[in-house]
Structures are given as C-alpha cells and as structure tokens.
C-alpha cells in the first residue's frame, strides 16, 4: 500500500503545481509530473514480489517464466503513454512560446483577462 500511496503523493505534487503556479512553463512541469505519477502507478499495479521482466530468455523454462514474470499489459500502456507524453510536452512548449510571443507575458491569470 505504501508504494501506491507514494504514487498518489507524486500526483498530488503535480496537481499542486498545476493549480498554484501562475508561470506557464511551471504549469507544463506540473503536468509532466502528473504524467510521471500515472505511469508509476500503472507499472506498480503489474508488479509481483520478486518479479522478473516479461522477456523470456532462451534457457528459461516456460512454467518458471509464467510464474515469475510481472504483468506485461500495464507496461505496454505506459510505453505508448511515455512517447505520447513527449509529443504532448513538445506541443505544450510550442504553445507556451507562441503565447509568450503574442502577449509578452507568461502569467496564466492575466491570460484569461486578455482578449484577442
């Protein structure tokens, strides 16, 4: 339970950054932390005590492999999620730069007052 709680704390830290920070780049960092937290939680879900990687090696018996390997399904989801997260981070940084160029400010609070 401890490990799950730590993932929840990591998500809380990211949420705090998203809610409190006014600097847009800091908000981007907060979203990245939330992503990390979700990935961590999914990988933790698949773990079993003394688990080995879900990659069968040549000399290994099938029964021993099935008995010891961790759950591969969350790993697949997280693998795609990490790479999508990178694309997302680039898009967010691109939007941040464009907003700064357009408004000359990175204050999220002022952003909502500005029109046009």
């Amino acid at each position, binding site marked *: 339970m401890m490990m799950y709680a730590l993932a929840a704390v990591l998500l809380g830290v990211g949420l705090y950054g998203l809610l409190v920070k006014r600097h847009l780049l800091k908000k981007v960092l907060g979203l990245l932390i939330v992503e990390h937290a979700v990935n961590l939680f999914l990988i933790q879900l698949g773990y079993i005590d003394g688990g080995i990687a879900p*990659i069968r090696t040549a000399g290994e018996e099938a029964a021993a492999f099935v008995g010891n390997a961790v759950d591969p399904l969350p790993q697949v989801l997280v693998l795609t999620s990490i*790479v999508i997260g*990178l694309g997302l981070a*680039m898009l967010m940084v691109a939007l941040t*730069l*464009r907003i700064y*160029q357009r408004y000359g400010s990175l204050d999220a609070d002022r952003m909502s007052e500005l029109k046009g």
Partner: protein
Amino acid sequence: MSDPQGMSIVVRVVTRWLFGLILIFGLAVALFGHVTPGGGFAGGTIVACAFVLAILAFGGSRGPGAAFARWASSLDATGALSFLVLAILGYTAGSFLHQWAARGELFTLGSTPSIVLLNLAILLKVGAGLFAGFIAVAVFEGAAGSEKGADA
C-alpha cells in the same frame, strides 16, 4: 541555432566520434526489440536523440542534423504509411494486422519478421516525428510581443 559554428571543438569532435555509434545502437535496440528489452519506441527515440545531439553540436545549418531536418516531416509520414502498409499486408494472411510473414525459430532475429518490420516502421515514425517536433521548438525565434497586433 543562432551560432552557425555550433559548440566548442570538444563537443563537435566527440559528436563526430559518437554519432554513428548512437545510430547503430538505436537500430540494434529496435531490430532486436522482440527478443530483448527495447523496440521501435526506444530505438526511435535514441535515433532522434542522435540527431538532436548533431543539431546542438554543429549548429542548425551543417552536419547530419541539418540534412535530416529537411526530410524529417516527410520521413515521419513515411513511417506512419509504412506501418499502415504492413498492417494491410496482413490481409494476405487473413485479416488487418495479421502476421503475414513466415515465422522462424524462437529467440532468434528471424523468429517473427512481421513484428521486426513493424518495429522498424515505428522507429522511422517516432525518430523522425520527435526530431521534427524538436526542430520546430528549437528553431523558433520569436521575440516577446513581436506579433502583437499583427493579426489581433
């Protein structure tokens, strides 16, 4: 980007030594993704990393990074299309995304050729796509407020 010379001689020479080695490492990680840790996503990101290093070391106008930058968007689309073509080839064996190539012995490179090819398509897609995104962000040179009123 603004500095055409790139970084200092130490970084440039070491990049020259390492660039090809990083490329071949990324390709090996992707090609052997079905028997060892790795795969198209990891390999593609490593290849993108190599070109990012080249761009940072040599500057935006010289070296392999600049050559690849011109083709990155096209190669990105090529990767996605080749994934689709490989998926459609699955109809020759029955259905969309079915394994169509003959399978070899387990634990070897040839144990499943269709997955190897899909891994390579993913490598092209991820490598070129991420590099194109990096170029877009890195080359951007907008000054604050320079667009104000231009299209408001």
